[in-house]
């Protein structure tokens, strides 16, 4: 993935999860059934909204950092993919887990959250450790 594309995709991710906040606020204002009366769903949709938005910002920072640190291109391409995918999985995993939840726990999509977290974490660690002359 190119640096430009990563930056644009990260901004789009932030926009997407910020927009989901409008949706949640509207459901609160409208006292929507299945939201106002479902604390588990509310909690996980909020988690998805917050994590998706914040991790989108992390991706923007990461896109800038990869350029600033001159991370080797072969690594940078993969880091961008991993970081972007990780942010999307965390946000979407929380949200889908909340939408499809059972009686006491979120639904199986929440299992995507640890996978996304690992992707993002390994991306950040790699960015921090790699030097411009590493191959």
């Amino acid at each position: 993935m190119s640096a430009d594309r990563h930056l644009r995709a990260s901004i789009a991710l932030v926009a997407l999860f910020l927009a989901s906040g409008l949706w949640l606020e509207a459901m609160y204002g409208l006292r929507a059934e299945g939201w106002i009366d479902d604390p588990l769903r509310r909690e996980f949709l909020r988690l998805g909204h917050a994590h998706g938005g914040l991790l989108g910002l992390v991706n923007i920072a990461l896109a800038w950092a990869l350029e600033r640190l001159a991370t080797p291109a072969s690594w940078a391409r993969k880091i961008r993919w991993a970081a972007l995918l990780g942010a999307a999985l965390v946000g979407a995993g929380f949200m889908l887990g909340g939408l499809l939840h059972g009686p006491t726990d979120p639904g199986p999509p929440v299992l995507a959250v640890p996978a996304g977290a690992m992707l993002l974490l390994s991306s950040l660690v790699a960015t921090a450790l790699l030097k411009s002359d590493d191959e």
Partner: protein
Amino acid sequence: MARAWLAPTLLFGPALAWSIAAAAGLAWTATDTAAWADLERHGDPVAGSASCRGCHPQQWQSWHDSWHRTMTQRPETGRVVAAERALVGPVGPVGPVGPAAGSGRQRQAGVLAPFAGEQLDYGGFRATMDRGDDGTPRVVVQRLDDAGDQVVGSPVLDVAVALTVGSHRYQQYVAQLGRAGGDDSELWRLPVAWHRAEQRWIHMNGAFVEPEGEVGSLPDYERHLSRWNDNCVFCHNTEPVPGRSDDWPGFRTRVGELGIACEACHGPASVHLERHLGNPLRRLLASADPGTDGSIANPSTLTPARESEVCGRCHGQRIAKDIAAVMRDGDGFIAGDELASVSRPIFADSTIAGAEGLEHGRPFAARFWPDGTPRLSAYEYQGLLLSPCWDPAGDDGLGCGHCHDMHGATPDGQPRAGRTGEGACVSCHSPDTLGGAQRSGGHGGHGQHVGAVDCLDCHMPRITYGLLEGMVTHRISSPDPAALLGRADQPDACTQCHVDRSRAWAAESMAALNLRSSPVDPSAAQAEERVASRVVLDLIGGDPIQRNLAAHALARPGATGSLEARMAWIAEGLEDEYPSVRWFAWRGLRSLVEQLDVEQVEQQDRRAALLDELQQFDYLGPIDARVEIITRVRALLGPGPLADHPELHEQLAADRWALAIWIGE
């Protein structure tokens, strides 16, 4: 070459490994038959309500706020329920109390009474409620001298409270008696209780429907010193086991949890916990459809019959199939079982082996009205079984859960949201289909009183006594005063509100309102109804339950008749020989006096004088003191009922001696 795979492995490897493991775990869990099978839970241990809280916080909280939870508490661990917090204020009943205040000792949360040295003189004995050196609530009973002023001799009872029972209407106390020859394994209900609404001590003889005992008689004073292990334990605890057997001396009583906790209605949860805590993936795959788990019962998904049996286990007095087995190991019932597999509900004609000769072969008849309707609380299940809304097949009729919600927001009565008043009925009985609904006055002819009269007032009248209260019957029926014309042994729905009217009037009014009714035979009406209302006749000449309920009806909001007339009538109950009748009359009269118009100058002094007299009146106090107050109250209220017919009054009062009964709370 190594560099080519290093980046993707480090970046994507952990997430990929996790994803593969999670997918495999989900697939394995989904296809593992043991994870989804219905599990046998009979005999399983109780896990305890604390183990439910983590996964079901909302349900746990609504249970925690209920009166069910505080059915039995240890004095040192009990917590006050939400409703009680509302009564005593946001800080709860915690704070320095009485003599203990100086030492900084605080009232224990599970104990509603102060236990700060209060005294209750009753029946020739003085009970003193205080605390031991370690702060444990204590009850000491001593005999009074003939004058009733000083205690004489050593205490006849000196015990430390081990458990509290109840907290809604009144709180009873349980202790080891420690008497010579007594069994350490036995706990006994003490003779005094704390009445929550009145914030006072009462003697248990006053809560039972029975005449008072002889002054100075210890057996009479201790009449309700009942053993907890094989009585109270059953319906005030979760999965109780009395532990009584011929194989060992005394009791080996144990309970799954004190009070009515989660597993009283859902059954033992240990395998449920094992299933869901042992494999978190099982929780992720759990269906959102309640009742599909297989390791726990959810009463809301049972058929109305099975669901109602969960409640009927305690709210419907029963006779065990095998009494010895129940006394040894408990009844073994868990939610979803047929209650009939372990017991049968008590009805008017029920008998028990070995008691065929008792009460003419009908030992339980006094607990029911002549038509078989229960007239005591804790028979709500029987009322439901006798209702036309009940489906004997059990699949499609009315169940407890239609009107009650154990996880709702209202602890008192635990009504389901929207199912109070007419809301209880209209989901099945559309107003459009009810007779008379389309004309002015509406169904039942009470349309002009919308808000004051609803379905329950006529179809579930307050003809049940329990815990010093008049309660709605759970036998749903249509009023038919004509069927009771000429009889004085059972109240009808109409005259419980129309307290100034006769049953003959009610019977004729049914026809006038074009409502279904038995044929009206005016000649069948009792002659005395021409000079007094049905409820007033019940108050003077009914049996003790009728007198309790008559006094209760006279003071109910919405009762017809002038305030003055009702005050003069209800004061008759202050003279009753049954403490419970005096209680209803005293409380009812007080509420009526409080309604006197304080704007009228001439009423102000009278109202204050009456309230002052009633403040001094103790329905459990010595008869001499009561008579003095009654004389002054009567002077302020004017003549009582049937003052113009003293012979009839005397006859009714004399006849009621033949109606004496001895039945429970």
